[in-house]
Protein backbone atom coordinates (compact mmCIF):
# COMPACT_ATOMS: atom_id res chain seq x y z
CA UNK A 1 0.00 0.00 0.00
CA UNK A 2 3.07 2.19 0.03
CA UNK A 3 3.13 3.64 -3.43
CA UNK A 4 -0.52 4.46 -3.89
CA UNK A 5 -1.01 8.10 -3.20
CA UNK A 6 -3.78 9.23 -0.95
CA UNK A 7 -5.12 11.56 -3.58
CA UNK A 8 -5.98 8.61 -5.78
CA UNK A 9 -8.03 6.99 -3.09
CA UNK A 10 -10.03 10.16 -2.81
CA UNK A 11 -10.73 9.91 -6.49
CA UNK A 12 -8.38 12.60 -7.71
CA UNK A 13 -5.73 12.07 -10.29
CA UNK A 14 -2.47 13.40 -8.91
CA UNK A 15 -1.17 12.50 -5.49
CA UNK A 16 -0.74 15.75 -3.62
CA UNK A 17 2.83 16.92 -3.18
CA UNK A 18 3.01 17.54 0.53
CA UNK A 19 6.18 19.56 0.19
CA UNK A 20 4.46 22.28 -1.83
CA UNK A 21 1.90 23.12 0.84
CA UNK A 22 2.48 25.70 3.58
CA UNK A 23 4.22 24.03 6.49
CA UNK A 24 5.31 21.21 4.24
CA UNK A 25 5.38 17.55 5.11
CA UNK A 26 5.60 18.26 8.81
CA UNK A 27 2.33 20.21 8.85
CA UNK A 28 0.67 17.62 6.59
CA UNK A 29 1.62 14.94 9.09
CA UNK A 30 0.15 17.05 11.87
CA UNK A 31 -3.06 17.47 9.87
CA UNK A 32 -3.41 13.70 9.56
CA UNK A 33 -2.66 13.18 13.24
CA UNK A 34 -5.63 15.46 13.96
CA UNK A 35 -8.19 13.12 12.39
CA UNK A 36 -7.02 9.64 13.37
CA UNK A 37 -9.10 8.07 16.12
CA UNK A 38 -6.75 5.22 16.83
CA UNK A 39 -2.96 4.94 16.83
CA UNK A 40 -1.45 4.93 13.33
CA UNK A 41 1.86 3.29 12.46
CA UNK A 42 4.63 5.18 10.71
CA UNK A 43 4.02 2.96 7.68
CA UNK A 44 0.32 3.86 7.53
CA UNK A 45 1.13 7.53 7.88
CA UNK A 46 3.85 7.29 5.24
CA UNK A 47 1.44 5.64 2.80
CA UNK A 48 -1.16 8.33 3.35
CA UNK A 49 1.35 11.14 2.95
CA UNK A 50 3.16 9.60 0.03
CA UNK A 51 6.48 9.80 1.88
CA UNK A 52 8.97 7.13 2.85
CA UNK A 53 8.70 5.53 6.26
CA UNK A 54 12.13 6.90 7.18
CA UNK A 55 11.12 10.46 6.47
CA UNK A 56 7.89 10.07 8.41
CA UNK A 57 9.72 8.56 11.36
CA UNK A 58 12.08 11.51 11.37
CA UNK A 59 9.19 13.97 11.27
CA UNK A 60 7.38 12.14 14.06
CA UNK A 61 10.46 12.27 16.27
CA UNK A 62 10.84 15.99 15.51
CA UNK A 63 7.22 16.75 16.36
CA UNK A 64 7.44 14.70 19.52
CA UNK A 65 10.47 16.66 20.69
CA UNK A 66 8.95 19.94 19.70
CA UNK A 67 5.72 19.24 21.60
CA UNK A 68 7.80 18.27 24.62
CA UNK A 69 9.53 21.62 24.49
CA UNK A 70 13.00 20.43 23.58
CA UNK A 71 13.15 22.89 20.79
CA UNK A 72 11.34 26.14 20.59
CA UNK A 73 12.09 26.71 16.96
CA UNK A 74 9.44 27.56 14.46
CA UNK A 75 9.03 24.84 11.86
CA UNK A 76 10.87 26.77 9.13
CA UNK A 77 13.89 27.86 11.14
CA UNK A 78 17.04 26.02 10.18
CA UNK A 79 17.03 22.95 12.38
CA UNK A 80 20.77 22.82 13.12
CA UNK A 81 20.91 26.30 14.59
CA UNK A 82 18.10 26.06 17.10
CA UNK A 83 18.13 22.36 17.95
CA UNK A 84 18.10 21.83 21.67
CA UNK A 85 16.65 25.19 22.62
CA UNK A 86 14.38 24.44 25.50
CA UNK A 87 10.94 25.96 25.62
CA UNK A 88 7.92 25.06 27.69
CA UNK A 89 6.10 21.96 26.52
CA UNK A 90 2.83 22.21 24.65
CA UNK A 91 -0.39 21.06 26.28
CA UNK A 92 -0.32 17.85 24.26
CA UNK A 93 2.19 15.19 23.39
CA UNK A 94 2.80 12.78 20.56
CA UNK A 95 3.37 9.21 21.72
CA UNK A 96 4.25 5.94 20.08
CA UNK A 97 2.21 3.31 21.88
CA UNK A 98 1.29 -0.21 20.91
CA UNK A 99 3.12 0.34 17.64
CA UNK A 100 1.09 3.38 16.67
CA UNK A 101 1.37 7.14 16.97
CA UNK A 102 -1.29 9.33 18.45
CA UNK A 103 -1.77 12.68 20.15
CA UNK A 104 -2.60 12.78 23.85
CA UNK A 105 -3.24 15.57 26.28
CA UNK A 106 -0.31 15.93 28.64
CA UNK A 107 -0.69 14.05 31.94
CA UNK A 108 -0.04 17.20 33.99
CA UNK A 109 -3.38 18.56 32.86
CA UNK A 110 -5.34 15.42 33.73
CA UNK A 111 -7.43 17.16 36.39
CA UNK A 112 -8.45 19.93 34.04
CA UNK A 113 -9.02 17.77 30.97
CA UNK A 114 -11.05 15.23 32.95
CA UNK A 115 -13.69 17.90 33.51
CA UNK A 116 -14.24 18.13 29.76
CA UNK A 117 -13.98 14.50 28.76
CA UNK A 118 -16.75 12.54 30.41
CA UNK A 119 -16.60 9.54 28.20
CA UNK A 120 -13.57 7.34 28.29
CA UNK A 121 -13.34 7.76 32.03
CA UNK A 122 -12.81 4.22 33.09
CA UNK A 123 -13.42 2.98 36.58
CA UNK A 124 -10.32 1.70 38.31
CA UNK A 125 -9.74 -2.02 38.32
CA UNK A 126 -10.15 -3.94 41.54
CA UNK A 127 -7.16 -5.67 43.11
CA UNK A 128 -8.52 -9.03 41.95
CA UNK A 129 -8.83 -7.75 38.38
CA UNK A 130 -5.35 -6.23 38.43
CA UNK A 131 -3.76 -9.46 39.65
CA UNK A 132 -5.62 -11.52 37.08
CA UNK A 133 -4.59 -9.07 34.38
CA UNK A 134 -0.96 -9.29 35.56
CA UNK A 135 -0.93 -13.08 35.38
CA UNK A 136 -2.45 -13.03 31.90
CA UNK A 137 -0.03 -10.33 30.74
CA UNK A 138 3.02 -12.31 31.86
CA UNK A 139 1.81 -15.81 30.99
CA UNK A 140 -0.08 -15.23 27.77
CA UNK A 141 -1.54 -17.06 26.04
CA UNK A 142 -3.00 -18.68 29.12
CA UNK A 143 -6.18 -20.50 30.09
CA UNK A 144 -8.50 -19.45 32.90
CA UNK A 145 -7.71 -22.69 34.72
CA UNK A 146 -4.02 -21.80 34.76
CA UNK A 147 -4.70 -18.28 35.99
CA UNK A 148 -6.98 -19.72 38.67
CA UNK A 149 -4.25 -22.12 39.73
CA UNK A 150 -1.75 -19.27 40.13
CA UNK A 151 -4.16 -16.94 41.91
CA UNK A 152 -5.75 -19.67 43.98
CA UNK A 153 -9.28 -18.47 43.29
CA UNK A 154 -11.86 -18.78 40.55
CA UNK A 155 -11.28 -16.01 38.00
CA UNK A 156 -14.21 -16.55 35.63
CA UNK A 157 -16.12 -13.37 36.37
CA UNK A 158 -12.98 -11.26 36.50
CA UNK A 159 -11.91 -12.60 33.11
CA UNK A 160 -15.33 -11.69 31.74
CA UNK A 161 -15.00 -8.14 33.02
CA UNK A 162 -11.49 -7.75 31.64
CA UNK A 163 -12.78 -8.95 28.25
CA UNK A 164 -15.67 -6.48 28.34
CA UNK A 165 -13.28 -3.73 29.17
CA UNK A 166 -11.27 -4.69 26.10
CA UNK A 167 -8.10 -5.38 28.08
CA UNK A 168 -7.87 -9.07 27.19
CA UNK A 169 -9.20 -11.23 24.38
CA UNK A 170 -9.70 -14.79 23.31
CA UNK A 171 -6.66 -16.06 21.37
CA UNK A 172 -7.85 -19.48 20.32
CA UNK A 173 -7.95 -22.75 22.21
CA UNK A 174 -5.34 -24.93 23.77
CA UNK A 175 -4.83 -27.87 21.40
CA UNK A 176 -4.55 -30.31 24.32
CA UNK A 177 -7.20 -29.29 26.80
CA UNK A 178 -9.52 -27.38 24.48
CA UNK A 179 -9.56 -24.55 27.00
CA UNK A 180 -9.83 -20.99 25.70
CA UNK A 181 -6.54 -19.11 25.89
CA UNK A 182 -6.42 -15.42 26.72
CA UNK A 183 -3.98 -12.69 25.76
CA UNK A 184 -3.80 -8.96 26.32
CA UNK A 185 -5.05 -6.58 23.62
CA UNK A 186 -3.43 -3.59 21.98
CA UNK A 187 -5.88 -1.48 23.99
CA UNK A 188 -4.16 -2.89 27.08
CA UNK A 189 -0.81 -1.69 25.72
CA UNK A 190 -2.36 1.69 25.04
CA UNK A 191 -3.71 1.95 28.56
CA UNK A 192 -0.30 0.95 29.91
CA UNK A 193 1.47 3.38 27.62
CA UNK A 194 3.86 0.77 26.23
CA UNK A 195 4.72 -0.52 22.79
CA UNK A 196 4.61 -4.26 23.47
CA UNK A 197 4.33 -6.72 26.32
CA UNK A 198 8.12 -7.11 26.19
CA UNK A 199 8.26 -3.66 27.81
CA UNK A 200 6.45 -4.81 30.94
CA UNK A 201 8.64 -4.59 34.03
CA UNK A 202 10.56 -7.74 34.97
CA UNK A 203 9.06 -10.02 37.55
CA UNK A 204 10.97 -10.02 40.84
CA UNK A 205 14.51 -11.21 40.22
CA UNK A 206 14.40 -13.55 43.21
CA UNK A 207 11.68 -15.63 41.71
CA UNK A 208 13.46 -18.93 41.12
CA UNK A 209 13.19 -20.11 37.53
CA UNK A 210 9.55 -19.83 36.68
CA UNK A 211 9.89 -22.53 34.07
CA UNK A 212 10.54 -25.04 36.83
CA UNK A 213 7.42 -23.94 38.58
CA UNK A 214 5.36 -24.50 35.49
CA UNK A 215 6.39 -28.13 35.57
CA UNK A 216 5.50 -28.37 39.22
CA UNK A 217 2.20 -26.91 38.37
CA UNK A 218 1.31 -29.32 35.69
CA UNK A 219 2.17 -32.17 38.01
CA UNK A 220 0.15 -30.67 40.81
CA UNK A 221 -2.84 -29.65 38.75
CA UNK A 222 -6.19 -30.96 39.80
Amino acid at each position, binding site marked *: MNQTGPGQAAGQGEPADVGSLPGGARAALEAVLMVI*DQPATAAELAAGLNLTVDVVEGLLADLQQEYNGYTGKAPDVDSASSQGVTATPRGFELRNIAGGWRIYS*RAEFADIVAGFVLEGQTA*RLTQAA*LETLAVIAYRQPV*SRARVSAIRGVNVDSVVRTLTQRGLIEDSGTDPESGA*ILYRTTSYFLE*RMGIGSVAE*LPQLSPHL*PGLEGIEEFYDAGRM
Partner: protein
Amino acid sequence: MALSTVTDEFIKYIKGLQQLGEEWALDEASEFLVIAATLLDLKAARLLPAGAVEDEEDIALLEARDLLFARLLQYKAFKQVAGMMGDTLDLEAGRYPRQVALEGHFAALLPELLWRHTPEQFARLAESALKPKEAAPTEVGLAHLHGTPVSVKEQAEILGGRLRAGTPLTFRALTADAESTLVVVARFLALLELFRDKAVAFEQLLPLGDLTVRWTAGAEGWSSDHLSEEYEEQP
Protein backbone atom coordinates in the same frame (compact mmCIF):
# COMPACT_ATOMS: atom_id res chain seq x y z
CA MET B 1 18.68 -24.59 39.33
CA ALA B 2 21.92 -23.07 40.49
CA LEU B 3 21.36 -21.59 43.89
CA SER B 4 24.29 -19.21 43.56
CA THR B 5 22.70 -17.53 40.54
CA VAL B 6 19.52 -16.91 42.43
CA THR B 7 21.43 -15.70 45.47
CA ASP B 8 23.60 -13.29 43.51
CA GLU B 9 20.61 -11.81 41.76
CA PHE B 10 18.80 -11.56 45.02
CA ILE B 11 21.63 -9.82 46.85
CA LYS B 12 21.85 -7.32 44.01
CA TYR B 13 18.13 -6.76 44.29
CA ILE B 14 18.23 -6.32 48.08
CA LYS B 15 21.15 -3.88 47.79
CA GLY B 16 19.16 -1.88 45.29
CA LEU B 17 16.23 -1.76 47.67
CA GLN B 18 18.40 -0.69 50.57
CA GLN B 19 19.87 2.12 48.52
CA LEU B 20 16.36 3.29 47.81
CA GLY B 21 15.71 3.16 51.52
CA GLU B 22 13.01 0.54 51.21
CA GLU B 23 12.09 -0.68 54.65
CA TRP B 24 10.76 -4.02 53.60
CA ALA B 25 14.15 -5.16 52.34
CA LEU B 26 14.63 -7.04 55.61
CA ASP B 27 11.33 -8.84 55.22
CA GLU B 28 12.26 -9.83 51.72
CA ALA B 29 15.68 -11.01 52.85
CA SER B 30 14.38 -13.19 55.66
CA GLU B 31 11.74 -14.66 53.44
CA PHE B 32 14.36 -15.48 50.89
CA LEU B 33 16.52 -17.14 53.55
CA VAL B 34 13.69 -19.44 54.50
CA ILE B 35 13.18 -20.44 50.93
CA ALA B 36 16.87 -20.82 50.22
CA ALA B 37 17.21 -23.00 53.33
CA THR B 38 14.38 -25.20 52.17
CA LEU B 39 15.89 -25.56 48.74
CA LEU B 40 19.29 -26.33 50.22
CA ASP B 41 17.73 -28.84 52.55
CA LEU B 42 16.15 -30.59 49.65
CA LYS B 43 19.30 -30.48 47.56
CA ALA B 44 21.40 -31.86 50.39
CA ALA B 45 18.88 -34.61 51.01
CA ARG B 46 19.14 -35.67 47.41
CA LEU B 47 22.91 -35.61 47.31
CA LEU B 48 23.55 -37.54 50.50
CA PRO B 49 23.37 -41.33 50.64
CA ALA B 50 20.05 -42.76 51.71
CA GLY B 51 21.11 -42.99 55.38
CA ALA B 52 20.85 -39.23 55.88
CA VAL B 53 17.23 -39.12 54.96
CA GLU B 54 14.75 -41.00 57.06
CA ASP B 55 12.66 -42.26 54.20
CA GLU B 56 10.94 -41.38 50.97
CA GLU B 57 8.18 -39.66 52.84
CA ASP B 58 10.56 -36.99 54.09
CA ILE B 59 11.59 -36.18 50.56
CA ALA B 60 7.98 -36.01 49.51
CA LEU B 61 7.31 -33.62 52.37
CA LEU B 62 10.26 -31.46 51.43
CA GLU B 63 9.08 -31.38 47.85
CA ALA B 64 5.59 -30.46 48.91
CA ARG B 65 6.98 -27.65 51.03
CA ASP B 66 9.19 -26.50 48.19
CA LEU B 67 6.25 -26.46 45.85
CA LEU B 68 4.24 -24.48 48.33
CA PHE B 69 6.98 -21.90 48.69
CA ALA B 70 7.46 -21.68 44.98
CA ARG B 71 3.77 -21.06 44.55
CA LEU B 72 3.71 -18.44 47.25
CA LEU B 73 6.69 -16.71 45.73
CA GLN B 74 5.16 -16.72 42.30
CA TYR B 75 1.91 -15.39 43.64
CA LYS B 76 3.77 -12.70 45.53
CA ALA B 77 5.66 -11.67 42.41
CA PHE B 78 2.41 -11.32 40.49
CA LYS B 79 0.86 -9.33 43.30
CA GLN B 80 3.83 -7.01 43.15
CA VAL B 81 3.66 -6.43 39.39
CA ALA B 82 -0.10 -6.07 39.66
CA GLY B 83 0.51 -3.14 41.99
CA MET B 84 2.96 -1.60 39.54
CA MET B 85 0.54 -2.14 36.67
CA GLY B 86 -2.20 -0.47 38.67
CA ASP B 87 -0.03 2.58 39.24
CA THR B 88 0.88 2.74 35.57
CA LEU B 89 -2.75 2.42 34.51
CA ASP B 90 -3.67 5.25 36.88
CA LEU B 91 -0.91 7.48 35.59
CA GLU B 92 -1.75 6.75 31.97
CA ALA B 93 -5.42 7.41 32.61
CA GLY B 94 -4.40 11.04 33.00
CA ARG B 95 -3.40 11.19 29.34
CA TYR B 96 -6.42 11.53 27.12
CA PRO B 97 -6.08 10.47 23.50
CA ARG B 98 -7.37 12.72 20.79
CA GLN B 99 -10.17 10.64 19.30
CA VAL B 100 -12.59 13.15 17.91
CA ALA B 101 -15.36 12.50 15.45
CA LEU B 102 -14.40 12.81 11.83
CA GLU B 103 -14.95 16.32 10.52
CA GLY B 104 -18.18 16.48 8.58
CA HIS B 105 -16.64 17.03 5.15
CA PHE B 106 -14.45 13.93 5.56
CA ALA B 107 -17.28 11.80 6.87
CA ALA B 108 -19.27 12.75 3.77
CA LEU B 109 -16.54 11.23 1.59
CA LEU B 110 -16.93 7.76 3.07
CA PRO B 111 -18.25 5.28 0.53
CA GLU B 112 -21.97 4.67 0.66
CA LEU B 113 -22.78 1.83 2.98
CA LEU B 114 -23.61 -1.51 1.44
CA TRP B 115 -26.70 -2.79 3.20
CA ARG B 116 -28.15 -6.14 2.28
CA HIS B 117 -29.96 -7.12 5.46
CA THR B 118 -33.72 -7.49 5.46
CA PRO B 119 -35.46 -6.64 8.74
CA GLU B 120 -35.92 -10.39 9.34
CA GLN B 121 -32.22 -11.12 8.87
CA PHE B 122 -31.42 -8.20 11.11
CA ALA B 123 -33.78 -9.56 13.78
CA ARG B 124 -32.08 -12.95 13.67
CA LEU B 125 -28.75 -11.21 14.10
CA ALA B 126 -30.13 -9.39 17.13
CA GLU B 127 -31.44 -12.64 18.60
CA SER B 128 -28.08 -14.32 18.40
CA ALA B 129 -26.32 -11.24 19.77
CA LEU B 130 -28.76 -10.90 22.67
CA LYS B 131 -28.84 -14.55 23.62
CA PRO B 132 -27.02 -14.93 26.95
CA LYS B 133 -23.66 -16.48 26.25
CA GLU B 134 -22.91 -19.79 27.83
CA ALA B 135 -19.80 -19.50 29.95
CA ALA B 136 -16.99 -20.81 27.80
CA PRO B 137 -15.45 -24.05 29.04
CA THR B 138 -12.22 -23.67 30.95
CA GLU B 139 -11.33 -27.32 30.50
CA VAL B 140 -12.58 -30.31 28.63
CA GLY B 141 -15.64 -31.36 30.57
CA LEU B 142 -15.06 -34.16 33.07
CA ALA B 143 -18.73 -34.60 33.87
CA HIS B 144 -18.98 -37.75 31.81
CA LEU B 145 -16.36 -39.40 34.01
CA HIS B 146 -18.41 -39.00 37.17
CA GLY B 147 -21.80 -40.34 38.05
CA THR B 148 -24.55 -37.93 38.81
CA PRO B 149 -23.73 -35.61 41.70
CA VAL B 150 -24.53 -37.14 45.07
CA SER B 151 -26.31 -34.97 47.57
CA VAL B 152 -25.49 -35.34 51.26
CA LYS B 153 -28.95 -34.11 52.08
CA GLU B 154 -30.58 -36.81 49.97
CA GLN B 155 -28.42 -39.50 51.54
CA ALA B 156 -29.29 -38.19 55.01
CA GLU B 157 -32.96 -38.60 54.18
CA ILE B 158 -32.39 -42.19 53.03
CA LEU B 159 -30.47 -42.99 56.23
CA GLY B 160 -33.11 -41.29 58.36
CA GLY B 161 -35.80 -43.40 56.73
CA ARG B 162 -33.96 -46.62 57.55
CA LEU B 163 -32.95 -45.74 61.08
CA ARG B 164 -36.16 -44.13 62.28
CA ALA B 165 -37.72 -47.58 62.68
CA GLY B 166 -35.56 -47.98 65.77
CA THR B 167 -33.38 -50.97 64.90
CA PRO B 168 -29.66 -50.07 65.14
CA LEU B 169 -27.80 -50.76 61.91
CA THR B 170 -24.09 -51.05 61.16
CA PHE B 171 -22.36 -48.62 58.81
CA ARG B 172 -21.59 -51.61 56.65
CA ALA B 173 -25.27 -52.42 56.36
CA LEU B 174 -26.19 -48.80 55.74
CA THR B 175 -23.78 -48.59 52.79
CA ALA B 176 -24.24 -52.07 51.40
CA ASP B 177 -26.40 -50.76 48.53
CA ALA B 178 -24.18 -47.79 47.68
CA GLU B 179 -23.47 -47.85 43.95
CA SER B 180 -20.24 -45.84 44.22
CA THR B 181 -17.60 -44.71 46.71
CA LEU B 182 -19.02 -41.22 46.35
CA VAL B 183 -22.30 -42.44 47.84
CA VAL B 184 -20.44 -44.10 50.72
CA VAL B 185 -18.63 -40.83 51.42
CA ALA B 186 -21.87 -38.88 51.21
CA ARG B 187 -23.56 -41.26 53.65
CA PHE B 188 -20.62 -40.95 56.01
CA LEU B 189 -20.83 -37.16 55.90
CA ALA B 190 -24.59 -37.40 56.38
CA LEU B 191 -24.06 -39.52 59.50
CA LEU B 192 -21.67 -36.92 60.90
CA GLU B 193 -24.33 -34.29 60.33
CA LEU B 194 -26.96 -36.44 61.98
CA PHE B 195 -24.62 -37.01 64.90
CA ARG B 196 -24.06 -33.29 65.25
CA ASP B 197 -27.80 -32.74 65.31
CA LYS B 198 -28.00 -35.42 68.02
CA ALA B 199 -30.25 -37.52 65.82
CA VAL B 200 -28.02 -40.60 65.97
CA ALA B 201 -25.55 -42.22 68.36
CA PHE B 202 -22.55 -44.37 67.44
CA GLU B 203 -21.24 -47.50 69.07
CA GLN B 204 -17.99 -49.14 68.19
CA LEU B 205 -16.90 -52.01 70.42
CA LEU B 206 -13.45 -52.56 68.93
CA PRO B 207 -11.08 -50.20 67.15
CA LEU B 208 -11.69 -50.64 63.41
CA GLY B 209 -14.63 -52.84 64.32
CA ASP B 210 -18.15 -52.44 62.96
CA LEU B 211 -19.74 -49.05 63.62
CA THR B 212 -23.30 -49.37 64.88
CA VAL B 213 -25.68 -46.48 64.33
CA ARG B 214 -28.73 -45.95 66.53
CA TRP B 215 -31.54 -43.44 65.97
CA THR B 216 -32.02 -41.20 69.03
CA ALA B 217 -34.18 -38.37 67.78
CA GLY B 218 -37.57 -40.08 67.94
CA ALA B 219 -39.85 -40.66 65.00
CA GLU B 220 -40.44 -37.04 64.02
CA GLY B 221 -37.54 -35.37 65.81
CA TRP B 222 -35.33 -34.58 62.85
CA SER B 223 -35.63 -33.36 59.31
CA SER B 224 -33.06 -32.92 56.60
CA ASP B 225 -33.88 -29.19 56.49
CA HIS B 226 -31.39 -28.80 59.32
CA LEU B 227 -28.60 -29.95 57.10
CA SER B 228 -25.90 -27.39 56.78
CA GLU B 229 -25.92 -25.37 53.58
CA GLU B 230 -22.32 -26.00 52.75
CA TYR B 231 -23.15 -29.30 51.13
CA GLU B 232 -25.55 -27.73 48.72
CA GLU B 233 -23.02 -25.54 47.02
CA GLN B 234 -21.13 -27.07 44.20
CA PRO B 235 -17.42 -26.31 44.50
